[in-house]
């Protein structure tokens, strides 16, 4: 089995999807703390936001590949034929589409971190910046919880 085949295998894709999402959530929670407490340099805030955006993009690609290639064929029929078909119809359908909100939202937060600290205060954006950073993290956590429900529904169908 070559490296590409390993990367494209189901457990590794799910691992990447979840692992990168955790990194993304942590990065934006960390950024929230920095913005709220006025801690860390501008450079460190940009670095944290770049890691967060990059991690969410990687999670999106890994999860998207798994969803398109494997989920419809292997997991969806199990959930739809099991005791909780609503998990696909409501949870999965919602999860896959609200994921589309994350990247534009996260990139907007990254753009805010480009501001000098003085400009952040002058434009009165600090509070909004940490609220938006928190919104990215909360959306990530919500999607993570939905992923847990979907996995549980497939496992115990």
């Amino acid at each position: 089995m070559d490296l590409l085949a390993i990367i494209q295998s189901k457990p590794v894709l799910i691992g990447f999807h979840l692992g990168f999402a955790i990194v993304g959530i942590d990065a934006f929670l960390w950024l929230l703390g920095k913005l709220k407490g006025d801690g860390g340099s501008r450079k460190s805030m940009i670095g944290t936001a770049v890691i967060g955006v990059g991690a969410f993009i990687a999670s999106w690609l890994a999860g998207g590949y798994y969803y398109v290639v494997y989920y419809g064929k292997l997991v969806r029929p199990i959930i739809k034929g099991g005791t909780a078909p609503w998990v696909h119809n409501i949870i999965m359908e919602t999860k896959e589409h609200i994921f589309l909100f994350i990247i534009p939202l996260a990139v907007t937060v990254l753009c805010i971190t480009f501001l000098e600290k003085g400009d952040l205060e002058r434009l009165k954006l600090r509070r909004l910046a940490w609220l938006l950073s928190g919104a990215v993290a909360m959306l990530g956590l919500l999607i993570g919880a939905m992923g847990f429900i979907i996995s549980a529904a497939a496992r115990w169908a």
Partner: protein
Amino acid sequence: MNKPRLIFSSAVSAIITIVYAVVITIWAELSLPLKNWLTNFSGHHWTSKSIFSVLLYAVVTIIIYFVSRDSSENNLRKALILLLVFTVLGTIALTAFFTGHHFKLF
């Protein structure tokens, strides 16, 4: 680079992308021809929606950045507040739609 203008452009574009994602998702669930067209475009309707959402966000951000004048402090704050509101509303709208769709309310 004008950073406040970039933030404003990104925020407005993100709002438009969220509205697009909600509208195209609900519309495609209610219209089989649209869902089939999205599926035929890339092989999967979700992949097509993803590609279009990324393109829409990037293109609209660039257009607004070059077309808009320097936005006032007030407009910048308004755009970011609206982005927060639309994120919440978009999440609620999709959850409510798929819940109603499951229970065959529409």
